């Protein structure tokens, strides 16, 4: 009789342990899914802003062209960087191409200083604010994305969540570094 009671106890204890482990695993799993979704969501934000910048450029070039006849090379480098950025296939490629585009735009904005007529143009002024803001939004979206990636990557690498991550194939994500030669930290346009 006593032996049966002890068996029952053992079973109950074992069942309890399995249940507790299952709850922990489910909790970690959900945390990982949440983290991954946040990363994806943050990435789509960057994507939106990058597209907005791509859309802005033809307008900008069109407005500025009339005032800046001698800057064909500047325009060409912008247009080229834009088409390269639009054709990028993965995060690494996009990083590189968007960095080049940021550089080209910075150079363009430096050159603008030499054209007071252009700087007085109302249409250009509003484009300038839109471009400034788009550059900021890209920077802030990147900031949010990298924060999300860091949190998520920590989860996939640290014990004990790394075990669950390994079981369900949660892989590490890449940071989005804009490879700008001028300034690595924040994409900057000098007005």
């Amino acid at each position, binding site marked *: 009789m006593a032996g049966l009671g002890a068996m029952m106890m053992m079973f109950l204890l074992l069942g309890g342990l399995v249940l507790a482990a299952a709850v922990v695993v489910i909790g970690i799993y959900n945390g990982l899914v949440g983290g991954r979704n946040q990363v994806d969501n943050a990435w789509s*934000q960057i994507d939106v802003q990058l597209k907005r910048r791509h859309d802005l450029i033809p307008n900008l070039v069109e407005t500025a062209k009339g005032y800046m006849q001698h800057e064909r090379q500047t325009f060409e480098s912008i247009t080229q960087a834009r088409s390269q950025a639009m054709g990028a296939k993965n995060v690494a490629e996009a990083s590189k191409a968007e960095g080049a585009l940021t550089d080209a735009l910075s150079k363009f904005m430096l050159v603008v200083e030499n054209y007071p007529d252009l700087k007085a143009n109302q249409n250009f002024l*509003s484009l300038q604010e839109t471009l400034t803001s788009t550059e900021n939004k890209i920077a802030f979206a990147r900031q949010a994305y990298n924060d999300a990636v860091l949190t998520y990557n920590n989860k996939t690498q640290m014990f004990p969540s790394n075990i669950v991550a390994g079981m369900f194939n949660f892989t590490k994500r890449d940071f989005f570094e804009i490879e700008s030669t001028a300034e690595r930290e924040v994409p900057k346009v000098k007005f």
Partner: protein
Amino acid sequence: MWEQIRINKRNSMILLTAMAGLLLGLGGLLGYAFVGPQGVGVGILIAGGVWLLLTLISFSSGDQILLASSGAVEVTPEVHPMLFNIVEEMKIAAQLPAMPKVYIIPDPSPNAFATGRNPSKSAVAVTEGLLAKLNRDELQGVIAHEVSHIVHRDILFVTLAGIMLGTIVLLADVFLRGTMYGSHRRYSGRDNNNAQGLMIIIALVAAILAPLMAQILYFALSRKREFLADAGAVRLTRYPEGLASALEKISGSKIPMETANKVTAPMYISSPFRGRQASLFSTHPAPEDRIRVLRAMMHGANYQDYDQAYRSVTGKSGIIPASALKDSEAIPTRQADTRSEPKPQPAAKAQQRILFGDFIRKQQGFAFIDCPCGVKLKLPPNLPTNRVQCPRCKTVHTVTQS
């Protein structure tokens, strides 16, 4: 990491519970004083009931009431593109699920506040004075501070605590008036009941002290939250100097806000009342302290850096909840932003004011007529006549709008 600073607000919870205790205790005491021992339960029920009712009202329409009482006008992006852009930038940085609504308050005093119970339904309001005074980076700092309030759910807390404060003041007021005008007849006949006589005196003292204590609690909570929102703002913008110099300009202004009162004051970025020293009864920390903390952030923009700066400036123990400090990844600050501002352009600022003025007139039903001579006629609704003469070129126009 955003979640952590929000969840770990034990101190705020303690304060809120203390206020609730104060409210219910006052209710019970007043019940005892009026009716006797059997009135305690009723008193507590009434106090709780009034609080619940006011809370429900404010939850269903509190932000609307606040916005309306401050005279804020919801604007479209065309009215102020830069303001909208900055709000959107901060929305992205803070990963808010939805774009906050944007309001402008026609008030020359520079200030701003945020409302909304949760991050997916929020609003930020800034005064015209603020837009006129600040440059882009400073405005970004202010908006980041407001967005941090939204992320930290401070508005919910301020609403809950503010209503408790309001209820306590209301109960105490009703009781004091009641005893002052009606006490003689009502209580003198029962003077054989000594215990109740004593309770009346205790209740009187409590009715005088409770609102003071509630205010001290409320304002302590509010001051702490201002520091936390500053820390959040820096984490969003990575640029402490923007907010610091904005606070400098705002606190340097001598114009008081016309539409603010003590209960709504904690919602604003800087105390809407001018020329007072920081004390137990201030809703905001002294702006000088906030500015000094921000300027002491030399190395980085994360919570640890803010906490460190806070400790070295104030000499107190830290301000940031411990769990938020665990995120120790270094966040560099960024450099001064020289790109955005095409130097002060008074013409553009004036243009902005005209644009906002017209926006308000349009909402009020004004009719606009562009005269060929270049004058823009702005006509109020319900004109007695439908023929108007241009003051410059004397052309007579017919008003088509009803």
